[in-house]
């Protein structure tokens, strides 16, 4: 029996294909980005990486005091883009972001403790 026959006889209509309605995942508050948005983010990541590598080759032309902050900001930007868009921290429940930030802060604190214990600051 075909789909049309089913409908003509008052049967249950075919459900909407799953492809038209992406299922939400546990912890998802807002819809995840679309594939096009994922590709745009990837292009931005490639541009930032190219900028970073070009900065490396400008050593000697530009003072290190300018290169190092630019590299750190670029890395932080890439880190943030991947975490927010690809790991969905901007669309999922805030509890995940809190866990992740807690881990990063703990790592930085650990670094500072190691430095101070080895008298790097004195």
């Amino acid at each position, binding site marked *: 029996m075909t789909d049309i026959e089913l409908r003509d006889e008052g049967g249950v209509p075919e459900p909407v*294909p*799953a*492809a*038209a*309605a*992406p*299922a*939400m*995942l*546990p*912890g*998802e508050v807002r*819809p*995840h980005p*679309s594939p*096009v*948005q*994922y*590709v*745009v*983010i*990837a292009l931005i*990541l*490639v541009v930032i*990486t190219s900028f*970073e*590598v070009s*900065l*490396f080759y400008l*050593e000697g032309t530009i003072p*290190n005091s300018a*290169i*190092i902050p630019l*590299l*750190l900001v*670029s*890395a932080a930007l*890439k*880190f943030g883009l*991947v*975490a927010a868009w*690809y*790991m*969905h921290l901007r669309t999922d*429940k805030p*509890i*995940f972001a809190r*866990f*992740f930030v*807690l*881990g*990063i802060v*703990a*790592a*930085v604190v*650990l*670094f500072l403790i*190691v*430095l101070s214990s080895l008298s*790097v600051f004195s």
Partner: protein
Amino acid sequence: MAVQEAPPRVPPAPPSSPGGEPAHPPTNTGTTNVKLAIWLFLASDCLFFGAFISAYLLYRGRPQTGPTPQQVYSIPFTSVSSFVLLMSSLTMVLALAAIQRGDMRRLRIWLISTALLGSVFIGGQIFEFTNFAHKGLSLDTNLFSSTFFVLTGFHGAHVTIGIIWLMSLWGLATQGRLTQADAEKVEIAGLYWHFVDVVWIVIFTLVYLIPPSK
């Protein structure tokens, strides 16, 4: 950036067992325990890598014998490796988007693409380590080599585990044992995979690109 109109979404439903009973009881966090667990694991892994990065930075630039980073690094080669790992993160999210749409053919394609890109990255790391060894740099040559090999080696181990995980998911998808209802399994693997990517973003900048202090 323009935000595309999202299609209507299906409300979240707890994963169900073959008997139709919810496999996961409701939690007071509003999400599944497995997703909470992977985020806790990633938070603890931040400390793991934080310790190794701290050790590398601490000994960076100290007087030592043997080859120095500037003598052994090949920035063009490592840049290509970084590009490959970044693109693997793209294919990973495309795999997740595919299974959420119920597009199992594309899921298989993107999963195997991610695993292959990860394998290319690992191949590059093996080549780099071998090249360093030929230049006289081994694990116990100096402080730089010890901290460098431990840090990048553990990162490579994480990538290898990720590849095995992705191949397992690809095998399940090929056998038809991974369905749209299992999208969370792909998301969990994806979170792990993106984490090794963000760790590499930090390593690439701090270890390879930042010039040594003079």
